[in-house]
């Protein structure tokens, strides 16, 4: 990396907004996935104009750019696979406008997801997408990955809550797409950019919809002695047309780990639990809760508890949302998958995942958004053992292949990133890649933004900007 680039970046932003020492950069070489790649420089812009200037500087030196929120992503989306400058949005973290009458918030990308809700909840509004990492993940990252969460079952993922974006293109141009009040004439560019994993533009401002809190919420904990009973319950809830706000499943192996750590009140001796939430008017929530309980009992639930109050409800959700942290106590590392399947295929999918685990010698935990068929099998392994690492990757790929065989997809909410890009041909043809590549090139012709993501390296887009393995850090180091 040219010393003159560092000098120019320092003069642009001030040295307190630039990192260049190896020990500092090391903090930015990983995210929540198993991948690693180190940027050459890290820059902290404060304004959209800063971002534009950094991008122009990067273009001048022909180095790649990758955007990053708080680095909680699970697919390597915010890793500098091609080195270059990492733009970290942590200091662009202001809520710019709260328009409560029109239920909109305009925010900078570095705003933490939960902080939007915290800013408006006193008015009865909240921001609906709720990834498990919502206490630390940023809205910019949510937009890049089109993040989901437990309650997206009823309320949709990030894209369903974004109406306008301000973007910086790879040449530094600042553009706005969409409209505050939604449905602007023309193509749905917001729909394209949300979930494009930072490969088309950098997002510098986001207008989001705020949702009104439901009148009544009921949270049910259903306890099962057999995993099949729990998965059959989910399939039947879906088939009966009951739409809970959330329907989460945790298998026994995983919930014992959670219980050790969180003490959420999950029964240690069960095979699986379902955490199901229904919302709406009092009458609707009561009827749905009864219907859900009925399905649970039909499928031999040992017990169905309904949270008595907000404190009990919060504790149950704390157990669910901190599960991944709890698993860190069991093994040095874990690999969280994100496959999606048709919900009617849930029972057979869980059986197959268990078989694949046995084949490779792993215990695979499952804690996932059962209601929308979004699986999160978790493979625990020791990255210091190369053989274990290879087996973890092989088992993961086999699970994803099986999801696709069932009519599913590679990723429901974590993104493709650099973790699943080589699996993309399982779903897409050469013609599909050709069109996606043309769309990519229309905005990011030199692959200067986030190279080496989404597309298989053999299918174009950014391979020349991706460092060879010898230059990049091996994932298991």
């Amino acid at each position, binding site marked *: 990396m040219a010393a003159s680039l560092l000098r120019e970046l320092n003069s642009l932003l001030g040295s307190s907004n630039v990192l260049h020492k190896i020990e500092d950069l090391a903090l930015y070489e990983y995210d929540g996935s198993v991948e690693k790649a180190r940027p050459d420089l890290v820059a902290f812009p404060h304004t959209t104009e800063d971002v534009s200037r950094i991008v122009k500087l990067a273009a001048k030196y022909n180095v790649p750019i990758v955007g990053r929120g708080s680095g909680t992503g699970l697919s390597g989306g915010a890793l500098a696979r091609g080195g270059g400058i990492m733009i970290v949005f942590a200091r662009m973290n202001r809520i710019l406008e709260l328009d409560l009458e029109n239920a909109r918030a305009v925010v900078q990308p570095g705003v933490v997801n939960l902080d939007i809700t915290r800013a408006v909840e006193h008015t009865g509004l909240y921001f609906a997408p709720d990834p498990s990492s919502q206490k630390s993940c940023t809205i910019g990252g949510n937009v890049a990955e089109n993040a989901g969460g437990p309650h997206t079952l009823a309320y949709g993922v990030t894209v369903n809550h974004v109406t306008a974006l301000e973007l910086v293109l790879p040449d530094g141009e600042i553009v706005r797409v969409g409209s505050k*009040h939604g449905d602007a004439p023309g193509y*749905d560019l917001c729909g*394209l950019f949300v979930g494009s994993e930072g490969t088309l533009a950098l997002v510098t401002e986001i207008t989001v919809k705020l949702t009104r809190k439901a009148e009544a919420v009921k949270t049910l904990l259903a306890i099962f002695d057999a995993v099949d009973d729990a998965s059959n319950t989910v399939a039947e809830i879906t*088939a009966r047309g*009951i739409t809970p706000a959330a329907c989460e499943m945790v298998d026994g192996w995983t919930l014992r780990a959670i219980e050790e750590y969180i003490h959420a009140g999950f029964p240690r001796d069960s095979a699986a639990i379902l955490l199901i939430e229904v919302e709406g008017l009092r*009458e609707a929530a009561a009827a749905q809760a009864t219907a859900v309980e009925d399905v649970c009992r039909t499928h031999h639930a040992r017990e169905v508890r309904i949270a008595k109050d907000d404190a009990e409800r919060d504790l149950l959700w704390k157990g669910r949302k901190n599960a991944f942290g709890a698993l860190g106590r069991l093994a040095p590392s874990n690999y969280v998958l994100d496959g999606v399947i048709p919900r009617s295929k849930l029972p057979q999918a869980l059986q197959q995942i268990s078989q694949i685990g046995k084949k490779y010698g792993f215990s695979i935990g499952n804690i996932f958004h059962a209601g929308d068929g979004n699986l999160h099998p978790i493979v625990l392994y020791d990255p210091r053992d190369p053989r274990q690492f290879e087996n973890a990757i092989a088992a993961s790929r086999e699970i994803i292949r099986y999801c696709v065989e069932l009519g599913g997809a590679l990723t429901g909410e974590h993104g493709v990133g650099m973790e699943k890009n080589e699996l993309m041909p399982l779903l*897409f043809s050469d013609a*599909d890649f050709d069109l996606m590549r043309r769309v990519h090139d*229309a905005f990011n012709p030199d692959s200067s933004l986030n190279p080496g993501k989404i597309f298989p390296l053999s299918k174009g887009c950014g391979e020349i900007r991706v460092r060879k393995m010898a230059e990049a850090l091996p994932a298991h180091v």
Partner: protein
Amino acid sequence: MTATANLATRLESVLGAHRVVASEAELCEYAIDGMVPGAIVRPTSAQEAAEVVRFALTEKLAVVATGSRSKLDLGMPPARYDLALDMTALHDIAHFDPADLTLSVDAGIPLRQLAKVLAEKGQFLPLAVPCYETSTVAGALASGIDSTLRKQYGSARDFLIGAEFVDGKGALCKSGGRVVKNVTGYDLHKLFIGSLGTLAVITRLNFRTFTLPQTHGGHLACFSNLGGASAYRDAIGKSGLPLANLETLSPEMVALTASVLRETNAEFAARLDPGKWWIYASYEGNEAVVPRIARDLQKLANEAAAANGVILDAASDAHLGGVLREAFDWLRWASPSVALFRMALPQSKPGDLADLLCVAQESALRGALLVRAAAIIYFALLAEKEDEAALRALENAAAQVFSHAAAGQGHATLLHTSSKLKSRVNVWGPKRADFGMMQRVKHSFDPQNIFAPGRFVGGI
């Protein structure tokens, strides 16, 4: 041999004679703003549609994909129009997994036919769009026309989960999938919503479906002025009552609605006082929820000093809801010259509605307003003649509507008007700042500009 006959003959060599039509009478049925295609092709498979596109590429022909042709008047007239690609022969249900609430259907399936199949399993697709009896699923989607159920179920972008299509290079492509949650690859299918067929030829669409509600009902509240109606609407918003639809009707719109209702239900029509503002709410749920919402609405209406409030049973709700769903259709023919706008403005400024009616008044035009789903404004400017004076009045009023929308951080589109007015007014209004971005998208899908050229925003 004429050029048209030549074209038909060449097409027949690609697809066979039975797929190609070139009779004068039928060609006229596919006219867009007076422009008639050179031939009509009816592919029966995605592969055949791709063959037609490749033929068009070779011959440098402009292609407009059509469904039931109920909304061909949307957008500007095409700059070129050689082939009408009639997609109605692709009308199968490729996949329906009721237990997963997912669906994959061919582009040309009529919404009504699809609804019957879904209803057998207690499900539906919330695309309650105008011209419902004839509309095809892809036509409804590509038109971008609003569903009356969008308040509760969102617009198509909220339940469209994938698509298959022919791109501008003649290749069969896909985007998304058949699962309800999916971030694998770019969400290209969302771009087709409201694209008027300018990006690709849609061959198949995948949706998540929804469970039919146990029952539904409606409520009508009548106010002597806009202030009362707005206060009531705001109170509903703050109440958090889950409504399937919420429509505000200006006095003129009430009169027009009553005249349509009169043809089928004179007694009901007589209950609508055309001198007033009306707010219509519809809601769904179980036998406990529906009466609860009706009671709450009536209470809110009383608190807002409504002049009248009527609770509608399911049959009356369906009847009125059906008439209002078709408003786009009947407003088009409500007077000799019509300019029908679709607008979005901040909800917090009811004064905007009054300002719009002033635009009509100052131009000596009738103005009728309908706010759909508490968000989208349909504003009809009606002239009693088709002469030059009427055209000029509509032209001037249109300019004011566009500038009003821009000033309010909103937007406006002239959804329907005559070809004559289209020659003076760009129906898309002034170019937006993101037009350059749209051009990039168009070029990547359709590099040779063969799909409906000129119909879309900024001449795309």
